[in-house]
């Protein structure tokens, strides 16, 4: 292989690597900007306790401030009293869903802690229930979508 060909090959690799890397950085920055336009918050949280049962109620709100429609793939969460697991959440809305641009998506969650979990809850004598979970969304990158998980956690105190 003549030396000129080697130099040309080396120069070509640098040019291609630079172009591809710049495009990658650009796509990544766009992805980060989109991700920053999504806000996840917990509202209307309440812990209703009676001698027979404990009901945990809250609404997850995903606010989409981006110009893209954001598909929501799923949502899940777990409940804890102190360090003890006291059951999974019951998600009472249809997922998957799509959050239109500049709109919000509300996911009501109502879960009753019963049976063995109720005993655990009483034993811990915790001041509330800790909710820990995630929402899986798809963010647009170029012509494609990348799956992203947004986590949340919140302590719902006793009334």
């Amino acid at each position, binding site marked *: 292989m003549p030396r000129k060909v080697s130099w040309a090959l080396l120069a*070509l*690799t640098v040019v291609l690597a*630079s172009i591809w*890397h710049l495009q990658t*950085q650009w796509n990544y920055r766009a992805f980060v900007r989109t991700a920053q336009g999504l806000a996840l918050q917990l509202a209307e949280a309440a812990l209703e306790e009676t001698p027979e049962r404990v009901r945990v109620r809250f609404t997850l709100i995903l606010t989409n401030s981006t110009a893209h429609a954001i598909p929501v793939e799923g949502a899940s969460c777990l409940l804890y009293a102190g360090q003890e697991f006291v059951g999974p959440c019951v998600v009472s809305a249809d997922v998957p869903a799509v959050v239109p641009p500049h709109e919000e998506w509300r996911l009501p969650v109502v879960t009753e802690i019963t049976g063995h979990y109720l005993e655990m809850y009483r034993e811990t004598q915790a001041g509330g229930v800790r909710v820990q979970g995630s929402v899986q969304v798809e963010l647009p990158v*170029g012509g494609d979508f990348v799956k992203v998980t947004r986590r949340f956690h919140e302590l719902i105190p006793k009334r």
Partner: protein
Amino acid sequence: MTKQNVGVFVVAVVLTGLAAGLSGATRELVRFSPVSEGFLVGLVGVAGLALGGLIRGFAQLLAAILLGTLLSGGIMTGALLLSEWGDSLLGLEATLSVAVSRAVLNGFLFVFPLTLIGALIGRLFQRD
């Protein structure tokens, strides 16, 4: 080594380090890349091939590959830091530590073996 050979050595190492470093950083963000990982692997291999065609002597070639790997590690660290600049929730120290560890891993598991294989093939075609 003559003065001219030193010049060839330095320029070849810098260009190889640049190509390998940028490819390694792109590989770390491959989900956002316009090309698949195979293209990036091929690119580093071709850079090694060209290096093998330019550097005389096996010891010099090995030194050039090692220096190119080190330089690519620095470039990868810089490029990965740049991608996280201002957006990372980890803080600068943790971001730097993640960038350095990724660069070291990529340097030794991706850049070094590929440039070595490419350079050994390149040596077979070495001609003046």
